[in-house]
């Protein structure tokens, strides 16, 4: 690790000014990606602004039609929140399967979504529920937020403050983990919203990160059953491949996992 200047702001405005004053500053949330990268000397920020004590980023709130989770809330807290589990069990379930206990007790919602790792789980829930990403400057719809692998709509210095997840009629997340890293090789988040519309978001497989499968959404809107999408395939051309799974295999798993998510949603 190269040396850097460490900052620990108490408020969002203080964080903004510290980041603004740094030559090449980075925000530190849970640090589950950033710190290993720095230890390997693959990143060398001049300053780290630790968001851990920024009160505005904390808290879980359930309103009548949404679960609003602060960007600084850790995965373990989402997984164990009775309120989240009651309102959107699929979201608590997803959080409970991220990484391992160490990761879940350090990693945060905002950190995961801002990083937009193509194999991360949370982007599946954000896109699959049509959530709204709140930042210190604006609100961004999930469909406009994810821009490609490790790319988001966030401007330089923009900080995610919270994410608002609409409470669906039913939803489930089915994940096939990469055996080595336990990131998702393919993860399918399927939600039937209260207005009857259906969203299907796939993480882990996309050549450009998390994506929706319109054909599945259409089929499920008419008939919310696993059988309805049994013959809907995504093209291997749009799916990534590596030593853990070829595009053909991942494309096949997209249908399998989506079916399982539908079945689990009930």
């Amino acid at each position, binding site marked *: *690790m190269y040396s850097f200047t460490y900052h620990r702001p108490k408020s969002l405005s203080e964080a903004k000014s510290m980041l603004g004053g740094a030559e090449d500053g980075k925000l530190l949330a849970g640090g589950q990606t950033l710190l290993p990268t720095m230890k390997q000397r693959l990143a060398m920020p001049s300053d780290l602004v630790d968001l851990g004590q920024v009160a505005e980023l904390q808290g879980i709130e359930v309103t009548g039609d949404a679960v609003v989770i602060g960007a600084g809330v850790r995965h373990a807290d989402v997984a164990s929140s009775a309120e989240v589990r009651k309102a959107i069990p699929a979201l608590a379930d997803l959080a409970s399967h991220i990484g391992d206990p160490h990761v879940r007790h350090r990693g945060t919602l905002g950190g995961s979504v801002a990083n937009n790792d193509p194999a991360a789980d949370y982007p599946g829930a954000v896109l699959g529920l049509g959530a709204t990403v709140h930042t210190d400057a604006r609100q961004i719809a999930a469909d406009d937020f994810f821009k490609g692998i490790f790319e988001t709509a966030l401007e330089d210095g923009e900080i995610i403050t919270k994410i608002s997840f609409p409470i669906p009629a039913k939803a489930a997340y089915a994940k096939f983990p990469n055996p080595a*890293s336990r990131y998702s090789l393919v993860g399918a988040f399927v939600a039937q919203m209260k207005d009857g519309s259906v969203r299907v978001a796939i993480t882990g497989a996309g050549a450009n990160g998390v994506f929706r499968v319109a054909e599945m959404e259409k089929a499920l809107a008419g008939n919310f059953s696993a059988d309805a999408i049994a013959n809907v395939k995504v093209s291997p051309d749009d799916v990534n491949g590596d*030593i853990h799974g070829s595009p053909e295999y991942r494309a096949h798993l997209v249908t399998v996992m989506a079916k399982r998510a539908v079945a689990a949603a009930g």
Partner: protein
Amino acid sequence: MGADGLGQRVLRKEDRRFITGKGRYTDDIAVARATHAVFVRSPYAHARIRNIDASEALAMPGVHAVLTGKDFAEDKLGSLICGWMIHSKDGSPMKVGAHPSIAADTVKHVGDQVAVVIADTREQARDAAEKVAVDYEELPAVIDPVKAMDPGAPQIHPEAPNNHIFTWPIGDEAATDAAFKGAAHVVKIDVINNRLIPNAIEPRAALAVYDEAEESYTLYNTTQNPHVARLVLSAFVGVAPEHKLRVVGPDVGGGFGSKIYVYPEETVCLWASKKVGRPVRWTAERTESFLTDAHARDHVTHAEMAFDADHRIIGFKVNTIANIGAYMQIFSSATPTYLYGTLLSGQYDMKNIYCEVTAVYTNTNCVDAYRGAGRPEATYLLERLIEKAAREMGVDRVELRRKNFIKSFPHQTPVIMNYDSGDFDALIEKALELADYKGLPARKEEAKKRGKLRGLGFSTYIEACGLAPSAAVGALGGGVGQWESAEVRVNPTGNVEVLTGSHSHGQGHETVFAQLIADRLGIGVENVQIVHGDTDKVQFGMGTYGSRSGPVGLNAILKALEKVEAKAKKIAAHLMEAAEDDIVIEGGKLKVAGTDKELGFGEVSLAAYTAHNLPQGIEPGLKEGAFYDPINFTFPSGCHVCEVEVDPDTGHTEIVKFTAVDDFGNIMNPMIVEGQVHGGLTQGIGQAMFEGCIYDKETGQLLTGSYMDYCMPRAADVPSYTLGHSTTVCPSNPLGLKGCGEAGAIGSPPSVINAIIDATGSDNIAMPATPERVWRAIHG
């Protein structure tokens, strides 16, 4: 036999310090004024070093030196060595290239070290290492062992044309060919034994201290065999003469073979400690462990087995290409030959075997012995082939095995080994019962209802442990003897120190070795201290690998102990005015049999040291040493049964039950043996389902260089094991031990793959059986 005696589940004495974080590993050892070494490593698989400019690095804060291969060569230090000479079919000796501790002219694999930076702190050394400017001329590389022998393939060592190290034969080729001519069935198979990375939990480390006053060196090192390290470093590399070099292997966190070898890093630290006049320490980062800890397995094999009309094996032909990597290490040549070809008879009565092993260099990291070393490769091949034969000939897989089992002992195989004991029918019988083989059809049916494919696979194995005897090892090309030494020191107050040449890196020697003393003398294990891992304390020893600590190391202790007992009896007889033959040792006392006369063991030892009243001609003191050289290998054997459920939609495979029935001879501590089996099975399952070292075929970059990509088995991936024993006592050593350290890793892989074959109906499956591979096996 007391609560601490042999055969008891005595809790491990060493665990208190390990569990409470009080273990003393190399990186924990503090010495004043220590500097830190960081190695500059090649980013290329094959390149010529045109120039190294260290001027910028040398000017950086805290930097003491930047040393290169040129400096190493100028100090006339030797090459690292391969410890076993193999001769090719044509009688020529193997063709070994140099293994410099720092590359001087060319780098031969990604991670090869080209320079070392010594600085006050690790971070300073790292900063400076980034500023060492190495001008490389990239050369074409060859990664695939089969392609390495192609004409026109890149040449790695001038000493080995076509990258060919040796082609070693074993068995009778003409007789085997003749047997095949009369075959009713011939079964053929091509298998790859996947390359593995060891992943000991403690990374390799070294701390080298040069004492200018004594002109001597001390090396603290993650080693499984400190005396062998000292011998190699003094006699071959020439860093320091043997009597001026002390090697300490303190607590070591796992080895599995990977810490047998003398590596470049400790060699360089020793040399540099004198050059910079300060202690030098190095601890591998995990990335360095992946790149440079000796890798394992990596065989490409074609084999054929001939059967007569009655399904008896009449011939076995094997052709194996072994990838050795870029350099030969201590056991690189022995592992794919004498530890592999000699076990190809397995548990089966075969009259004719012929095997050729071709060893080749590639631009990859070194490959050497790793838990099982050669025997897992032999067992995997044999048990995949038997399974295939049963399927092709349409005979029951259990019956085919039983029909061909060796039934009587001793049994001379056509490939050197003389098996001394075993009962293979009893092993499979017990395994069938514990695995509830009869209930399999019902379980398959039930699984089918849940949409799962259930399958069961067998593996039988026999392996050779306690590498021995020395004369035989020498005749086959081994560079050292394979005995073990021990010293039993009884202190005046009656407690005991045992000095052993074995080395514990997790095995539990401090407990099991103490159990032997406690059992024989009738004193508690708390009164016995095991001393190991320090060349200044223990006279000489061969260290621990090849499951040798029990069959060889413990028998050496017994031999020394018997001398101590004999002397103690002499003294006791004299003091109690009884005949020596009437003295018995029981419950910590020396008693005159049939009388109430007795002396405490401490009273006798005190008498030995006060020497006020000793029998005529008896020297004071109570301390004896022994060297034990075995008369044969030992032959643990077993039957492993794996049961899996496969999800046909994803290829995900779950091991629902794993049964291992083993014959380890006598068992000293069942709890520790079970621990060894659990660990071995998990490593074997790791090879079968999860682990695979992958290099980019063109560039030679390691694609599985971290835990994000190299998949280690986790607790959740393995079942709660069902273990059983069926014992035949080993007749070749006094304690009747066979060894248990590697059996799990040897027997398990084929049982896992055979279970997947049974579940899916397809034998087009390779290790590791990843979900995608299993899915493709089902769906084509």
